[in-house]
C-alpha cells in the first residue's frame, strides 16, 4: 500500500495549508463548524455522514458511492493531501482518513495532532466561520483490493497466534469482554494532554505490549472508531502490517459461542445437581455462569445460591397433568430455608408458592441446583420445559388464552404457537440474539394477546378469502416504551415461524450486541422506520410479502375473569389470581378439579389469571362451590380483579418496593372501601399495575393506575415511594404518562381513592376511566393526586409546584 498516512503538527499545517493541493477537513458537527468556527479554509465533512455513531445499526463503512459523493461535494481530488481534525482526541478524524484510505485515496492522508485545540493553542490559532467555496470534483471511490480490513477468519487466525490482536478500548470494557488473547492498549494511552506522546515514549509503550514494527497487528474496538486513531498512529510510527477488524467486537460476540448452547448448559448444570451443587458449579464454571443460566430458565435470586425457576407454557396452555406437576414441584421445592423465614417466609402466602406471569409463564423461587435434576426429570415426563424461558432468545410465545373456546374466534392459534415454540426451542443459533425477542399470537378479534407491546404481534386478518394474521412490529415497554407499528403485512398461519426466523435473523445482523440498553428490536424499527423495516424484513424472508385485505380486530379485551360460554356450548371459568400468586398445592388442586370437572386443562392468561375450560353445566356448578374459589374467584372485587405486580423487592435485586403482599393488602382494603363508597358495582376491574422498580415487569404503562417503585427524601426523612401515572389503555394504544413522582408508598391507596371519587363525580355518562384521564388536564389530575392524602407535613417531593 503506497498511500502515506501520518500525523502532522499544527506548525506543519500552518506552513503548508496554503498549498494548492492541501485540503483541510473538519469532521465535527455542522453546527460546531459553522457557529464555533473552524480552521480558515477547512471544509466540513461531519462524522455522521461517513458513519453514524448513535446508530443502533452498526457504524460500518459507508458505501463507496456515498463516500465519493461526500468528497466530491467537499471539493477534494483523489491526489490531494488531506489533513483531518476534530475535537474528540482525533478518533473521528482518523476514522475519516481510514475510510479514505480504504476507498483508494491516492494523496497523503494526515491527522492533525491535538485536533482543533492544538491548532488554537498554536501560533496562528485563528478560526473562521466562512465556508470556503469549492466546486464539486469528479471524485471516484473504489474499495482497494489490499484494503487493510480484517474479517473474522483473519482474527480467528490471529487468535491462533498468527498476529497480535489489540483491543483499543478502555480497561473496563476490556475486562468485561474481549477477543481471547487480545492485548489491551487503550487508544488514549498514546496521547498525553490530547497530543501524541513523543516517539521514544510511544515505542517503549508499544514494545511493552509486544507491538513491534515487524509484527502483524489487528486492531479492534466496539464500533471501529477508536481503533482508527491507533491505526493512524501506528502507521505514522512506521508500522506497515496493521489491519483493523471492521466488525469489531460486535461481530465477534455474535459468533456462536459454545458456552451459550442451552442444551449443553442444561446437561452441565444437571451434573452438579448430584455433584456438589451450587458452590461446585460456580467454582468450576465461574461466577459468570450465573448470567448464562437464564438461558435454561434459572435466575439467580438476590439470596445467594437460590434460583427463580421459570417454566414456559406456550400460549398459556397446560394439561392438567402438567399443571399438577408444576404445582407439586412448587409445593415441594419452592421452599425457603430457615434463615430466610422457612415456612413463614411470606406473611400472606406462607411457603411453597408460584407466580403466574404476564407472559403466561410460571415462576417459583428458592430452587437449588441440587434439586434441578429431579425437577427436570419430572418436567420431561410430562413435556414441560424451562429452556429459553429467559435470556436473549425467542421468549415464551404469548397466545390468546381462550383459543379454541371463544365463539367468535377466527384462527386457531394453537398449532401456530406450537410450531414457533418447537422451531426455536433449544436452537443454539437463535438462543443468543442481541436481546430478548417477544412474540404473541391472537386468534380472536379482541387482541387479548396484546400485539401492541410485542416485538412481533400477530392478530387475525384475511387475504383473498384466506385466514391469517397481520403483523405489528417493534412494540415494548421497558426503557423507552413504544407502541408496535403496523407494517401492513399479511402472513398465513403456516408461514408464521418463517416470519419469526426472518425477523430473528434481521435482529442478529443489525442489532447491537454490546450496548444492551438500546438493542431491543423496537429501536431498529424506530431507526429504519416501519416501511423500510418491512422491506428489510422481506429480504430475510423466504416468501413474498402480501398486504391483508381486511384486519379483524374489533375490540380489546382486558381479561377473561368470569364464567363464559364456549363455542361448543360448554363453559370456561376465568378465575382471578390476585397478583398471579398461588400456593403450589392450590395449583395442583385446581389441576385435579379441571381433570375431574372440565377437560383436563388449565390456561394461564396475560393478566396472571387462570382459566378452567370445558366445563359442563354440572361441572361448572361443582367448580363454583369448591372452597378454592373463595380466594380465586370468578367474581372478585374490582381492585382484586385488576391488580398486576412483578416479583418486587422480596426476590429481585432491583426491586425498590415490596409488591405482592402489599398489592393483596391494598386490593382487599380498596375493595371494601369501594363497596362502602357505593362504587364497586360501577366497575368490573380497576387496574393497578405495580412494578418494584422502573423496569416494566408489571407493565405499569398499561394500568388504570401505573405504579413503579422509587425512593423519596426530604431534609429529614426518606422512604419507599412510587411514581404514579393514570389511564393506560392497550385497547386504544394508550400508555400512561408518569404524572407524579415519589409518592410515599403508604399514601398510594389514599391517592387511588381520591382519584376514583374524582372520576365518579366528574366523568360524563359512559365515559371510561381512560377517557376521563385523557380529557382531564395533567395539571388537574396532579392536583387530585397530590391533594388526596392527608399528611402533616406533606412530603416535599409531592407538593404541587
Amino acid at each position, binding site marked *: 500500500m503506497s498511500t502515506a498516512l501520518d500525523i502532522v503538527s499544527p506548525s506543519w499545517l500552518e506552513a503548508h495549508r496554503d498549498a494548492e493541493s492541501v485540503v483541510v477537513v473538519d469532521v465535527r458537527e455542522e453546527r460546531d463548524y459553522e457557529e464555533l468556527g473552524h480552521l480558515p479554509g477547512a471544509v466540513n465533512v461531519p462524522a455522521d455522514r461517513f458513519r453514524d455513531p*448513535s446508530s*443502533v445499526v452498526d457504524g460500518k463503512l459507508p458505501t463507496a458511492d456515498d463516500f465519493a459523493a461526500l468528497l466530491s461535494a467537499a471539493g477534494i481530488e483523489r491526489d490531494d493531501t488531506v489533513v483531518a481534525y476534530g475535537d474528540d482526541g482525533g478518533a473521528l478524524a482518523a476514522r475519516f482518513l481510514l475510510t479514505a484510505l480504504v476507498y483508494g485515496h491516492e494523496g497523503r492522508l494526515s491527522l492533525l495532532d491535538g485536533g482543533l485545540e492544538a491548532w488554537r493553542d498554536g501560533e496562528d490559532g485563528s478560526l473562521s466561520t466562512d465556508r470556503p467555496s469549492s466546486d464539486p470534483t469528479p471524485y471516484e471511490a473504489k474499495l482497494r483490493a489490499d484494503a487493510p480490513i480484517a474479517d473474522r477468519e483473519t482474527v480467528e487466525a490471529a487468535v491462533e497466534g498468527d498476529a497480535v490482536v489489540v483491543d483499543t478500548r*478502555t*480497561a*473496563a470494557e476490556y475486562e468485561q469482554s474481549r477477543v481471547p488473547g487480545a492485548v489491551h492498549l*487503550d487508544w488514549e494511552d498514546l496521547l*498525553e*494532554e490530547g497530543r501524541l506522546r513523543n516517539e521514544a515514549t510511544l515505542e517503549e509503550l508499544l514494545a511493552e505490549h509486544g507491538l513491534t514494527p515487524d509484527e502483524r497487528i489487528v486492531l479492534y474496538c*466496539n*464500533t471501529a472508531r477508536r481503533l482508527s486513531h491507533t491505526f493512524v498512529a501506528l502507521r505514522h510510527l512506521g508500522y506497515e502490517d496493521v489491519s483493523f477488524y471492521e466488525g469489531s467486537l460486535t461481530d465477534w460476540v455474535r459468533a456462536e459461542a459454545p458456552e451459550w448452547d442451552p442444551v449443553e448448559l442444561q446437561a452441565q448444570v444437571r451434573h452438579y445437581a448430584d455433584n456438589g451443587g451450587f458452590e461446585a458449579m460456580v467454582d468450576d464454571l465461574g461466577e459468570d455462569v450465573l448470567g448464562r443460566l*437464564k438461558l435454561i430458565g434459572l*435466575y439467580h435470586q438476590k439470596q445467594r445460591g437460590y434460583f427463580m425457576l421459570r417454566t414456559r407454557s406456550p400460549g398459556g396452555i397446560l394439561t392438567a397433568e402438567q399443571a399438577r406437576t408444576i404445582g407439586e414441584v412448587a409445593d415441594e421445592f419452592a421452599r425457603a430455608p430457615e434463615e430466610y423465614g422457612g415456612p413463614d417466609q411470606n406473611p400472606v402466602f406462607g411457603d411453597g408458592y408460584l407466580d403466574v406471569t404476564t407472559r403466561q409463564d410460571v415462576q417459583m423461587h428458592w430452587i437449588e441446583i441440587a434439586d434441578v435434576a429431579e425437577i427436570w426429570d419430572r418436567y420431561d415426563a410430562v413435556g414441560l420445559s424451562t429452556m429459553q424461558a429467559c435470556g436473549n432468545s425467542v421468549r415464551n410465545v404469548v397466545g390468546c388464552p381462550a383459543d379454541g373456546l371463544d365463539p367468535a374466534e377466527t384462527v386457531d392459534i394453537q398449532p401456530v404457537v406450537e410450531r414457533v415454540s418447537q422451531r426455536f426451542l433449544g436452537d443454539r443459533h437463535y438462543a443468543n440474539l442481541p436481546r430478548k425477542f417477544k412474540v404473541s399470537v391472537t386468534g380472536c378479534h379482541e387482541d387479548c394477546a396484546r400485539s401492541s407491546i410485542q416485538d412481533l404481534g400477530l392478530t387475525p386478518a384475511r387475504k383473498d378469502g384466506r385466514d391469517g394474521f397481520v403483523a405489528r412490529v417493534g412494540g415494548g415497554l*421497558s*426503557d*423507552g*416504551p*413504544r*407502541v408496535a407499528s403496523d407494517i401492513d403485512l399479511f402472513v398465513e398461519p403456516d408461514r408464521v415461524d418463517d416470519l419469526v426466523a426472518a425477523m430473528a435473523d434481521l435482529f442478529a445482523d443489525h442489532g447491537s450486541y454490546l*450496548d*444492551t*440498553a*438500546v438493542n431491543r428490536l423496537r*429501536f431498529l424499527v*424506530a*431507526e429504519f422506520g416501519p416501511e423500510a423495516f418491512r422491506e428489510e424484513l422481506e429480504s430475510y424472508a423466504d416468501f413474498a410479502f402480501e398486504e391483508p385485505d381486511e384486519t379483524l380486530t374489533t375490540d380489546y379485551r382486558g381479561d377473561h375473569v368470569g364464567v363464559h360460554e364456549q363455542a361448543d356450548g360448554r363453559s370456561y371459568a376465568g378465575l382471578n389470581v390476585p397478583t398471579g400468586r398461588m400456593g403450589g398445592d392450590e395449583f395442583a388442586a385446581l389441576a385435579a378439579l379441571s381433570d375431574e370437572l372440565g377437560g383436563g386443562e388449565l390456561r394461564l392468561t396475560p393478566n396472571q389469571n387462570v382459566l378452567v375450560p370445558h366445563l359442563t353445566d354440572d361441572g361448572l356448578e361443582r367448580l363454583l362451590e369448591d372452597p378454592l374459589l373463595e380466594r380465586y374467584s370468578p367474581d372478585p372485587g374490582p381492585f382484586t380483579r385488576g391488580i398486576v405486580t*412483578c*416479583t418486587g423487592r422480596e426476590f*429481585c*435485586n*432491583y426491586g*425498590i418496593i415490596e409488591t405482592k403482599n402489599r398489592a393483596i393488602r391494598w386490593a382487599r382494603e380498596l375493595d371494601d372501601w369501594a363497596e362502602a363508597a357505593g362504587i364497586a358495582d360501577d366497575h368490573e376491574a380497576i387496574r393497578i399495575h405495580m412494578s418494584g*422498580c*422502573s*423496569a416494566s415487569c408489571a407493565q405499569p*404503562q398499561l394500568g388504570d393506575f401505573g405504579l413503579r*417503585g*422509587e*425512593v*423519596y*427524601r*426530604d*431534609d429529614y*426523612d*426518606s422512604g419507599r415511594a412510587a*411514581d404514579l401515572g393514570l389511564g393506560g389503555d392497550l385497547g386504544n394504544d394508550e*400508555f400512561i*404518562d*408518569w*404524572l407524579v*413522582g*415519589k409518592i410515599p408508598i403508604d399514601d398510594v391507596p389514599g391517592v387511588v381513592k381520591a382519584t376514583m371519587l374524582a372520576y365518579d363525580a366528574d366523568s360524563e355518562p359512559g365515559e371510561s376511566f381512560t377517557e376521563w384521564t385523557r380529557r382531564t388536564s*395533567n*395539571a388537574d389530575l*396532579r392536583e387530585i393526586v397530590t391533594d388526596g392524602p392527608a399528611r402533616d407535613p406533606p412530603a*416535599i*417531593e*409531592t*407538593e*404541587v*409546584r
Partner: protein
Amino acid sequence: MSGTHEPGVPQRGVKGVGSDPREQDRDVAEAPGKIWFRDLDEAVIEADRCIQCASCVAACPSDSIGIDEDEGRPTLVKMCTGCSRCWDFCPRSGLRYERHLELAREERALEEPATYAARADGEAAAAGQDGGVVTALLAELIEVGELDGAIVAREREDEPLRGEAFLATSREDLLAAGGSIYTQTMGLGRIEALLAEGDLGSDDPELALVGTPCMIQGATALDRYDHDPADPIALTVALMCTRSFEHGRLLSRLESFDVDPAAVETLDIGEGRLRAVDETGETLLEADVDAFDAAGLRGCDECADFVGDAADISVGNVGSDDGYTTAIVRTETGEAAWTRAATALETTAIDRPTALETLADWNRRRAESILPREFDPEASVGITYDAHREAYDGTDREPEPLNPARVHQYEEWC
C-alpha cells in the same frame, strides 16, 4: 417550592444532554423529577466534576454502580432503576453539602468542639504523615475492642502514589497504611467488598472510616437517613483537605519537574508548599503547590469543607508545629473515641489556630466564587435535576453528553 424532587410538568422526549437512543421514540412521558444514573453521569462524571467520594456507589440500592478500575470513577455496571439515590447523595449534584454540614452541626456536634495539638510516639509517629495521630488512635481503639477495623488508604503496589482503600484490622495494618495519599480511594464504595474479602468474624462489624471531607459528607448523609451502607461505620475521621489529585495528572506534573514518581516515598503538602521525599529522606522536589493546580480534581474547586465538618474527628497539619497533628473533636462519638485512646497520644488542648481559620475561609471563598449554584446552608438538602441544570448550564461546568460506550445496562428479570 423546596425539596428534592417536586413534581413538575412531565416532558416528552429527552431530558439529558446526550442523545440517548432509548429516548428517540418514547411513547410515555417521564415522571417529573425522575433521575437516572445517566443524569449523574452527565452532570458530574462526564462534566469532569467528580471528586471520587464514592457516595453514589454506596447509595445505590441495587449495587448498579461500580468503580472503573482505570479511572477510579463510578461507572454503571448493571441496570439502573432510576431511583435517583446516587444523585441524592452526590455532593456535586443532588446533595447540598453545605446544608448537610449545617444539619450535622445542629444535630450531632458538641456545644464546643475541642481542638488539640497532638502526636503519637514511637512507630505511629514515624508512620504517620504529621503526628501519626490517626494511626495511633485507630490502633488503640482496635486493640481495646472498640472497633473491629478501619477503612484507610495505602499505596497501590502497581502504581506509585495511587491510593487504594484498605481495611486495616490491626496495629500492623495501620502502621503500614500511615501517611497521606493525595489521590482518592473510593473507600466508601468499597466497604462491602472489603468486609467480604476481609472476614472480620463479626456479622455486625464496627468500623472507622477515614477519608477526605467529601467522602465523610456522603457517609454521614447516608447515615442520617439510616441507609444500610452506613451501618458498619461507627466513627468518621476527616483528613482536612483543600484538594485531592487526579492520579495520572499528578504523575505527569511530577515528571515535568523531572521527578520520577516511583522514587517518591512520601508527598507532603503544607503551608502552600509541596514536598516530595525519597526513601532515604532526601528531598526530591519542593515547589509551590499552585504549580500542581492543574493536577487537582476539578470538582474540588467547588468544595468549601476544608475542615470536614461532618466528621466525628478532623485532622490536619495546619496550625500545628512540625510533627504534630491538629485535631478537632466534634461529636460525642468523637469525644468518646478520643478519651478512650488518650493514653496513646500526647495531646494539648488549644484554641482553633488562626492559620486554620484563615485557610478554611479562603477555601470557602474560593468555592463560593467557583460554584455555579448558590452556596446556601439554609436551603433544602436536596437539589433537583432542573435546579442543577438551571445553575450549571452555560457554564464551563455544565453537563456533558454521556459516552454510550460506558453504559452497560441490562435487564435481568423480565
